[in-house]
């Protein structure tokens, strides 16, 4: 499967694709071009009376199996569907926004900055959901936190000024020099690995987990 960003063709055969961007228009165009189902945590405006009303209002034929499985991951039981929206907490509203959007999932789903405002526990749940969805769908993920993107993505795309600057995770994060030149944000672990080599002549392995880099640093200090 491929997507096009500003005429650049990108094969998205891997399932979790991260997109780093500095101009929201590129994401809006992607949404329009591919009619993407978008999950974000900002749109918490609801019209229904109960949770189930809201999901049904959003989609006459909701993908209830997916909704149920995601509710399980979120530790929600079926009574959540009967809850009145006025009684929901902010986090429950974020859950509802996810459920109503995911109920109309097609081929590609975009999680647009969904880690904003989520605590550690909920971040883990959302990563589980992303991994569950990637079995059958293409999952695009954006985040203001490049550390999160680096950790979860199978394939990464970095755009700047509405142009694709890099794609493919391995190439990107071992090309820190280029990222610095372009003034693009770099994940902390990649940056430390790069700088250790450049400035101290210490060869660390590019790793995605703090625990791995600690072992590596321990060997070299």
């Amino acid at each position, binding site marked *: 499967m491929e997507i096009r960003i500003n005429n650049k063709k990108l094969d998205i055969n891997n399932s979790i694709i991260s997109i780093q961007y500095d101009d929201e228009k590129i994401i809006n165009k992607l949404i329009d071009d591919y009619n993407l189902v978008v999950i974000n*945590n*900002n749109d*918490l*405006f609801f019209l229904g009376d109960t949770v189930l009303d809201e999901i049904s209002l959003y989609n006459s034929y909701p993908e209830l199996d997916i909704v149920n499985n995601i509710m399980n991951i979120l530790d929600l039981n079926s009574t959540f569907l009967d809850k009145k929206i006025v*009684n929901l*907490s*902010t*986090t*429950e509203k*974020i859950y509802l926004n996810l459920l109503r959007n995911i109920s109309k999932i097609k081929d590609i789903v975009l999680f647009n900055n969904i880690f*904003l*405002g*989520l*605590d*550690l*526990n*909920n*971040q883990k749940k959302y990563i589980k959901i992303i991994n569950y969805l990637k079995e059958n769908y293409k999952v695009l993920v954006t985040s*203001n*936190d490049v*550390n999160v993107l680096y950790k979860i993505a199978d394939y990464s795309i970095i755009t700047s000024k509405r142009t694709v600057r890099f794609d493919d995770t391995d190439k990107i994060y071992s090309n820190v020099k280029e990222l610095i030149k372009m003034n693009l944000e770099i994940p*902390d*672990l990649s*940056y*430390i690995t790069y*700088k*250790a080599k450049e*400035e*101290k002549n*210490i060869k660390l392995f590019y790793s995605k987990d*703090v*625990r791995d*880099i*600690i072992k590596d*640093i*321990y060997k*070299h*200090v």
Partner: protein
Amino acid sequence: MVIMNVENISFEIDNNRIFDNLSFSIESGTINAFISSNNSCKTTLIKVLSGVIYNNCGKICVNNITLNNRNFKKYTINISTILSDLDNQFMCDKVEDEIKYILKNLKYTKKDSEKNYCYVVNLLKIENLVDKKTCELSVIEKIKVLLASSIIHKPKILLIDDLLRFLNSNERKEVLELFNVIVNNLNTSIIFTTSNLLDVINLSNIYVLKDGKIIMNNSYENIILNDNDLSKAGIEIPLMIDLSRKLEFYGLVNKIYYDRDEVINVLWK
């Protein structure tokens, strides 16, 4: 000087106790953060403090006025509140009208209204936004306008519910800087809620909530030393702090570093 005093407030929803004898006091001209995991009823706390939800269990006092059924107006005149539901808080089409809106309700004269308006626009440096429509604003612009409209009548307390979650790291710094500007110029005390430790860097008054209780009340530097308690409270430790704490555990560094270059220079001198 203590501007807000909260004594033993408790709150229940559907027989679930959300706060349990919560007590704290807020000094005037300070920035205070309440941090907890999601679903810890931070929004409810803000609503209780603002008087939107009336709670007769415990005592809340602002500027020597105790909140009760009879003096709701007197109490709330000292307080401004910004809730996290960004888009639902705009009342007007134009930014200028939005900022002045509260002054109309408070029956300010046109002259005073104009004076206060010019002051906040200048203070928050939002001259470039005043001619825009509210629907055209970006997220950070919306936040700036909401801040302006909230402080235009110079309240004693500004309550902000989880607003920084919408922002990236640079925008977050910008808004935190505006908090300082507000506190330093108006002597308003700010109370904000968040679930992200990056929002409270360098603050000296942080309250960590868990299961409806304050489990820590300290400065940022002291709070991050209790990373186990923070993790138990469901609060994520930022990557650089996590890395520093682990390096510290192995005796490779002797303090917490926030800067990536600094860590490298300390590890390999």
